[in-house]
């Protein structure tokens, strides 16, 4: 046994997870605004291109300045995640290196060439390139950011639904067998659609909130810009929030198929079955894991009959497994038997033993027949490899309260956004003067932080829900983490918290100053 392993402290895993979560949450403050505001400013510039009206040029330039602030502060914050892979998550990093290499390299190249080229034309090119070329550059800046998001989300989706790969016991790496299976996995497509479309909601909420602030302050110079921006923001917001609901439904369907435990945790569904209802509200104590083995269901539950069966199986009477079903094993309607956690753990340990035997035999110069025997044993149990690291069945159940409440916050706020943007457009359609409705304008400003809470809640569901897995069924976090000292990771956690808070304060400060200066200020 490696002496290093004797120093492994559970707290190191916790600190490494906390640090990764902190970095990812911080990074995700900037990315959705880039994607959402990029779309809206491109639409505005398209209006300028079509009408030639200088108002739309000034309006586009104003929103491009705010886009630039967000872009500048957010750029490169994602690189820190890659540093953390190499230091804190080295086992995981080694195992996925061959899979992640291609998408991340493509992302880096596209991000560098597309974004850096077209961002420059977008900011420096007014009156120096044709209007058409400038418009194309603005759209391509947005497209470049969106394509970057695609590759990152492909990498994330692969961890949740690993496809297109084969484990090589000689190199100890997962090697890509099909680039297209990885790049176009159905899980990746759903994740991309839901994540990017929900980012447009944040862009819309931002534009509506800033416009509402100008109207509240009765800034005459910005009144027309605010009113027209509010309208465009509401249209984009309504389309995006409805799109996010539709793509979210599709994501949930896919989660039910490949990550049933995540769905069970989202629903606090302890015991599944056919004709499952969808929980609207229930009392799940946020501060402790419920006793799912003895509780029949969460107390004070209000549910939509058959809703969960429809969501998870697309049939009214479909079978949906609960936490206990997944732990004890169950049989699907098509006759497929899903093994119990105990059996999966036993097969996982057998896979690890076969891997050890194979590598030992290889080192000893064993003959081909012996190697083939070990390899066949490894291949037979490889789908359960990760379960071999699990000590207790309870480790396989993610923290239910976070999943349950984060899912409800996301869906609740998402529904509120549909109503809010629809209300703005309804009032506009009825020719009501929204600039006089203080309650509406104040609500618009309050909706901006709600958009971020909604978006981050979605990530909490996605990432907490897949615990204990770094790679679904293949590698738990306890085996992914490096043998690092908890104190070292804790120190960088606090360092990051300080650094990120300072950078966020810088951004908010610059952003607020720029908003106060208004649309007439040129820079």
């Amino acid at each position, binding site marked *: *046994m*490696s002496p*290093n*392993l004797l120093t*492994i402290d559970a707290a190191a895993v916790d600190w490494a997870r906390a640090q990764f979560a902190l970095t990812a949450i911080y990074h995700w403050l900037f990315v959705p605004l880039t994607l959402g505001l990029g779309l809206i400013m491109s639409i505005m510039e398209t209006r300028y291109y079509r009408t030639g009206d200088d108002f739309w040029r000034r309006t586009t330039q104003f929103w491009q*300045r705010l886009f*630039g*602030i967000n872009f*500048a*502060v957010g*750029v*490169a*914050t994602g*690189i*820190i995640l890659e*540093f*953390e892979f*190499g*230091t*804190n998550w*080295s*086992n995981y*990093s*080694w*195992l996925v290196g061959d899979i992640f290499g291609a998408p991340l390299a493509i992302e880096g190249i596209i991000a560098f060439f597309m974004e850096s080229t077209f961002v*420059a034309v977008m*900011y*420096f*090119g007014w009156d*120096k390139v044709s209007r058409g070329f400038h418009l194309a550059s603005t759209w391509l800046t947005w497209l470049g950011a969106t394509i970057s998001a695609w590759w990152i989300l492909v990498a994330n989706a692969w961890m949740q639904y690993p496809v297109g790969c084969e484990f090589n016991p*000689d*190199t*100890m*790496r997962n090697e890509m067998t099909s680039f297209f299976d990885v790049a176009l996995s159905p899980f990746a497509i759903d994740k991309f659609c839901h994540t990017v479309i929900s980012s447009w909601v944040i862009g819309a909420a931002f534009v509506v909130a800033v416009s509402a602030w100008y109207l509240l302050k009765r800034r005459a110079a910005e009144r027309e810009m605010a009113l027209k921006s509010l309208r465009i923001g509401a249209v984009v917001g309504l389309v995006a929030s409805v799109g996010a609901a539709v793509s979210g439904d599709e994501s949930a369907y896919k989660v039910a198929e490949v990550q049933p435990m995540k769905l069970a945790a989202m629903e606090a569904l302890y015991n599944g079955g056919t004709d499952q209802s969808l929980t609207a509200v229930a009392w799940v104590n946020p501060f402790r894991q419920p006793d799912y083995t003895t509780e029949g269901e969460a107390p004070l539950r209000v549910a939509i009959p058959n809703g969960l069966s429809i969501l998870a199986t697309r049939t009214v009477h479909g079978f949906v497994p609960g936490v206990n079903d997944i732990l004890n094993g169950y049989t699907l309607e098509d006759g497929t038997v899903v093994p119990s956690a105990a059996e999966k753990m036993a097969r996982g*340990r057998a896979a*690890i033993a076969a*891997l*050890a035997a194979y*590598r030992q035999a290889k080192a000893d110069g064993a003959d081909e027949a012996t190697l083939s025997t070990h390899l066949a044993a490894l291949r037979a149990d490889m789908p359960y490899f990760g379960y*071999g*690291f699990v000590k207790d069945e309870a480790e396989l159940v993610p923290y239910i309260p976070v999943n349950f409440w984060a899912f409800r916050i996301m869906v609740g706020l998402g529904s509120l956004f549909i109503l809010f943007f629809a209300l703005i457009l309804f009032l506009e359609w009825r020719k009501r003067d929204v600039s006089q409705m203080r309650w509406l304008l104040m609500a618009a400003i309050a909706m901006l932080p709600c958009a971020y809470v909604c978006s981050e809640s979605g990530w909490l569901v996605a990432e907490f829900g897949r615990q204990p897995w770094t790679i679904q069924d293949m590698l738990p976090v*306890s*085996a992914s983490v*490096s*043998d*690092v000292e908890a104190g070292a990771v804790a120190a*960088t956690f606090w*360092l990051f918290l300080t*650094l990120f808070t300072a*950078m966020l304060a*810088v951004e908010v400060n*610059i952003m607020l100053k*720029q908003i106060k200066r208004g649309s007439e200020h040129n*820079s």
Partner: protein
Amino acid sequence: MMTPADIYRFYRDGFRQMTLGRTLWLVILVKLFVIFAILKVFFFPDFIGRHAAPGAEADFVAGELMNRK
């Protein structure tokens, strides 16, 4: 068709005319310095590179995983 000189002048003039952009570039440069010259160098070493001999990385990871079961 833009020549390399035109492209150079395009960027040069663009950078010269920046106002808000100067502040943003300062933010970017300070951030990149902190990320690459401080965080990467002092806080985020290549863990496997430090603990495994060159060419023996797979053995190191195998040992880590198999002993953690």
